[in-house]
């Protein structure tokens, strides 16, 4: 009884197969693909002749849910799109609606949004760092990264109520105010994090085996980046100085002094260093935001109970840990949006891998995949 049927994609992929190669599935269930990404690769010995990503294993048709549910009802979905940096997606959706309807956000709420989103960015980078070194074969750094990340998640959990898929923002502010214990814990965390970053650099960045595994591996030229529309640390690793917080400032980001780390060696080490420097920048943003925290209420009292924006469209983009997150909403005056489009950064970042991975070794492919910092629910939408 032939229960196993050759599936559509591997049949089409196998048509152009050379005879001295084998086709393997870096399948939906594989330690190096964080989540359910499947890559069909044609291997000649250790080298990849060509590869193709097969997506859709985690597809939930988020955009149709956006059209069925009302404006507030679709909001929890944004926390489930990129669970690494959920608050960025929350901010994108809430910012889009505020811009569409024209809701004013009080001063203190903007500061709280900056603090919690930057803390969430640090947690996302820590998750990426631990798991990236795990891909390269070392089992201990992920535990050190999670040790710090757990402290951070406890701080955020007290205020936002959840640890990974947040639903903390509201139209016109935030769900709950932050108290003195939150501020004190964050200060303690930031001070401790500076010394922990030195430990990370000492332990991994200077390690010769790590360096050899990562230096000039997976070169993305500037032209590939613009052709595929990759943004975020992947683009900044190839010498492109583009960060939505500085390019199209939103919220109160223009009040803080922070640099955009850019490396121009275009390889995995450059993307690694960009993210490590971004950790320090986020820490300094959080410290500046905590000092300048103004008084005021955490939510705009006059937000309309019923969100029924007039006919029109809005496109609002935010800088998440993985790149430029954009939400495009067309409203036709009704209760539900007419069309919701979610622009996810790793979707474009991953699309350039098919072209770049020709002639790569399998171990380099795994290293490059890790350096892209993929989150599959954001790609499959």
């Amino acid at each position: 009884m032939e229960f196993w049927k050759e599936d559509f994609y591997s049949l089409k992929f196998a048509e152009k197969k050379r005879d001295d190669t084998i086709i393997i599935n870096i399948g939906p269930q594989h330690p190096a693909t964080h989540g359910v990404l499947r890559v069909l690769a044609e291997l000649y010995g250790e080298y990849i002749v060509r590869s193709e990503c097969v997506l859709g294993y985690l597809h939930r048709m988020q955009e149709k849910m956006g059209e069925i549910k009302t404006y507030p009802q679709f909001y929890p979905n944004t926390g489930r799109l990129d669970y690494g940096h959920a608050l960025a997606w929350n901010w994108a959706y809430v910012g889009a609606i505020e811009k569409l309807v024209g809701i004013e956000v009080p001063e203190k709420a903007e500061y709280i949004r900056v603090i919690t989103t930057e803390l969430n960015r640090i947690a996302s980078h820590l998750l990426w760092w631990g798991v990236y070194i795990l891909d390269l074969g070392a089992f201990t750094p992920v535990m050190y990264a999670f040790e710090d990340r757990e402290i951070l998640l406890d701080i955020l959990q007290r205020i936002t109520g959840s640890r990974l898929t947040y639903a903390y923002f509201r139209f016109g502010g935030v769900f709950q105010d932050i108290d003195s214990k939150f501020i004190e814990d964050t200060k303690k965390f930031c001070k401790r994090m500076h010394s922990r970053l030195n430990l990370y650099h000492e332990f991994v960045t200077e390690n010769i085996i790590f360096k050899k595994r990562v230096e000039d591996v997976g070169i993305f030229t500037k032209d590939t980046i613009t052709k595929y529309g990759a943004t975020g640390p992947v683009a900044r690793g190839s010498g492109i100085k583009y960060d939505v917080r500085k390019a199209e400032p939103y919220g109160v980001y223009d009040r803080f002094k922070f640099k955009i780390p850019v490396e121009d060696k275009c390889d995995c080490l450059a993307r690694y260093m960009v993210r490590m420097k971004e950790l320090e920048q986020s820490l300094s943003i959080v410290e500046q935001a905590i000092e300048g925290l103004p008084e005021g209420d955490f939510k705009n009292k006059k937000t309309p109970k019923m969100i029924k924006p007039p006919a029109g469209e809005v496109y609002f983009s935010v800088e998440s840990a993985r790149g430029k997150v954009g939400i495009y909403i067309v409203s036709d005056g009704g209760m539900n949006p007419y069309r919701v489009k979610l622009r996810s950064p790793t979707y474009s970042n991953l699309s350039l891998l098919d072209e770049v991975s020709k002639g790569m070794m399998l171990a380099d492919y795994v290293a490059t995949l890790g350096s892209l910092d993929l989150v599959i629910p954001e790609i499959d939408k």
Partner: protein
Amino acid sequence: MSGVEWTFIKIVIGMLLILGFIAFNAILLGYGERKISGFIQGRLGPYAVGPHGSLQMMVDMVKLMTKQIITPKKADGFLFWTAPILSFMSVPVLFMVIPFSPSFTVINSGLGIVIILAFSGLNVLALCIGGLGSNNKWSLLGAARAVSQFIAFEVPILLVVLSITLMTGTLSLSEIISKQGGFPWQWNIVLQPIAFVIMFVASLAEMNRVPFDLPEGESELTAGYSTEYGGMGFGLFVLAEYTHIVVASSVITTLFLGGWKGPVFSGIWWFLLKMYILCFIILWIRWAFPRVRFDQLLNLSWKYLIPAGIFNLLATALLVKLF
């Protein structure tokens, strides 16, 4: 009873003792590996079974034994099931030759090193057969990597062993130990530091231990050659790997650290102490380094270890000639 029966009985008793020693060591190292990895990563390691998790390995052994025996579809049944047996079969022979202490050596043969080098090659044959036989592309890649890695790292070990025998003039292990003195500065490690480093790195690679564990690199080949094995097949592979750690560290202690000779009253406890320190270091290394890429691994051997081995050999030959 003439000499022949006596040596035959001695060998049988020795074999039983060695099997007991291997089983004890496998459990000790398995438990040690989890505890060390736990302590290094800021957690406790096994805690539930027995006081502080000490009986965890017993439970694991029972679990592995009771697992269903599955042969993958279209896999070559004979090859698939001889691989674990073969990989575990070569190990007890190695222990027969190692001089734990004057009274505890099973066979005091004049060609100790040659036997060790010969039988340690069997393990790779087992990996290769296992990888090929399990009809899985991943294990095929793992098998190919295992074979080329072993060939690359067999040559440095030969060079090191050659320089040691050149220096001490004998091939039997017990004489090598007798030539070394009790105090640390009389051991071979002082006379041949480069050889010790080459031997340590090369035997790390031969045991497929991190940073050279490419044949079963989890994050690339999803457990390499042992992907299709479950239950006792996998259990035998793990057992063989742990026993190889013990064999390699005991070989290094005999060649470099003066075997059972110790500063005060030398005996088997010195041998065990040095060996377990070496095992501890090998286990410790596993949790500190990422994995090397495959071509860097081969470059390391062909470009660095072998030239260093040859240089070391020439240097010892010169020194032996002078003194």
